[in-house]
């Protein structure tokens, strides 16, 4: 696992919550906070635009099956397992939506 989640220097700002991408409903968006799941997965995701700080919008998140997200102008399909390893910062009141 990439350790940034334990890095106190990366605490999200006040009023901002951190949730797994898999918990965002379609239409919701957030900024990538952290990629878990190892260096290899992190560098694959980064090559498709999913790097720390990138703005991600969920295009489709149904109860089961993969998600579609829009990041840096590209639509990317992500398995639920992969999406659950991507933590995003959202405004605290927008928190966990439906899906997942």
């Amino acid at each position: 696992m990439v350790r940034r989640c334990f890095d106190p220097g990366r605490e999200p700002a006040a009023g901002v919550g951190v949730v797994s991408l898999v918990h965002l409903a379609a239409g919701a968006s957030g900024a990538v906070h952290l990629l878990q799941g190892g260096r290899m997965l992190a560098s694959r995701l980064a090559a498709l635009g999913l790097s720390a700080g990138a703005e991600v919008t969920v295009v489709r998140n149904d109860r089961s099956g993969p998600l579609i997200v829009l990041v840096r102008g590209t639509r990317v399909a992500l398995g639920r397992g992969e999406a659950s390893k991507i933590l995003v910062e959202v405004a605290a009141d927008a928190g966990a939506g439906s899906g997942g």
Partner: protein
Amino acid sequence: MPVPVRAAEARAGPRRSGDWTSHVLVALAGQPNVGKSTVFNLLTGGAQHVGNWPGKTVERADGTCRSGSLRLHVVDLPGTYSLTAASEEERIARDFILQQHPAVVVVIADATALERSLYLAAEVALLDVPVVLGLNMMDAAEAQDIQIEPRVLEAALGVPVVPLVAVRGQGRSELLAAIGQVAGDPDRFHPTRPAIGAPHREVLATLQRLLARHVPPPYKPAWVALKMLEGDDELTDAAKGWLGRDDWDEAQRLLMAHEDAVLDAAEGRYEWIERMMRAAVMRPRPGPITITDRLDRLATHPLWGRLLLAAVLAAVFTATFTLGSPLQQWLDRSVIPAMGAAMGDALGSAPPWLRDLAVEGIIGGAGRVVTLVPVLFVFFAAIGVLEDSGYLARAAFLLDGFMHRIGLHGRSFFPLFLGFGCNVPAVLAARVVESNRDRLLTILLAPLVPCTGRLVVVVFVSAVFFGGWAALVASALVVANLVVLTAVGAALSRSVLRGERAAFIMVLPLYHRPTLRSVAHAAVVNTWAFVCRAGTIILAASVAVWALSSYPGADPEHSMLATLSRVVEPLGQLMGMDWRLLAATLSGFVAKENVIATLGVLYGGEAHAGLDAALAVAVSPASALAFLVVQMLFIPCVSTIAAMRQETGGWHWPLVGTGLLLALALAAGVAVYQGAHLLGMVA
């Protein structure tokens, strides 16, 4: 999906580089779906050579062209999102750049997704080679109101930037001029390079110092250090060999303590990219609702999307058989017999055995290959349309859930789907699946997809025995095969091939109108894979089957094939199959298309009509049903096994797959025959 139809390969490898020593070496790099192949075709026109990377299963294309007085040798690198050794393609692309040190690397970017496509440019820039950036799909960017200033981008990057609309042939001469300029005077350009994010600059510098005296050329310590921080296993292993014990321990300690450096490496690149974008790109905000958004609302919907997918697949098969079948029948009824007759006449004075060999063995065998070509061509062209339009990626997305049940994910849908045409291209196309385990499982399952060759047998035999029910029986057999495929996949992925399923991460490209060129390419390449690999083997085998069934006596009853089949007849009796049905099945091992021909020889029917009647009299419906089930599941044909051997790099997996299918076919055959008996079907 990354150009999976480019599965076939020419028989010869790429020409030796010696042929091109007087040429300037140019490498073409780009992410998948940026139109890199179109640019390659635009540059090199007809002067191309397609082969495989030495020892690899990835296609390599070489071509030549001129830029002023310079003669260029252009190499089309595999499409990759980055240059970390995560896949075979990425390793090939970066090894080529490092070891062959091309005079110019042309990075093709998609102007509509510039931010992402510049990521590869950022990686290439780190390799310290002269770069030209080609901005493809400028027309699509304009249509989306994205304004790019190539001159500003050029100044910011420090490398020539050339706008292109490759599908319309725009930008060729400008691109060639830029390549010539860089090749002629590489020191004129001073490309900027991304740096790792600030928190890890110190760590990178320390690691670089450790590596400094140990890294052999062509590698550079700075780059190796960066890739190690990004989790590149290949270079980390290499570094272990390069470094002394103490230095390696220290390097390893750094890597352990800074696992998150990968995030800063990527962030550093995107910061660099954003600087370029701020300077040179104007984008409307918020993004307009594109055609892709609108189509995806339907195409990726859990219910409507699946219904649409079912309709699309039905349309593909309908188109294949309504367009392909008449041609097939025409070839089968008119052209092939006429060729046989002509050959017979031409060899009128030759010994009878030679005439038989030519007419039955060669023309008969070639005929079976040729008659399948129209059907396969239409099928593969239809797949080409789906692929090129971007729809296949949506199909993979929708079927990901189902594919999980058989231990795979959405990406394996494409190779398995090709299997309905011919299993050989299906096995070859399994290359689009990234992880070795997933690829292997896809290859093992591919022969369970009922191919055209088998469908022909099933349609013919079920028409003989089941009259009005024939279509239903044939469809049920296809469904049964897919059920078996699902069960086998589920079983294998929980036993022999247990293991981590690779991550499902796939770009959904924008929809666009398929080009005739790429659809034709898909159809030709895949059909050609069938003709070259399956075709030659079918032809050879057809001659062999003719010999086995014609010798030692003129009477097929006493031929070698009959003798062989009688040996296994006790097993056949369990399935209600006599030696003749067994002989037909055995000949199907060579090519499924042989089955009907062998039935024809053994049951003495000259024309199809004669064979129908002879079969209906000699074989019971229960036996026929068992025979059909065995046909559908029986071991893969020789060409498929050869493809499996090539793709898995040895005999182990083809033998496992063959044994598995053989056991399944026999078990199913016995079960169906005995079951049919119990249910009172006439014996």
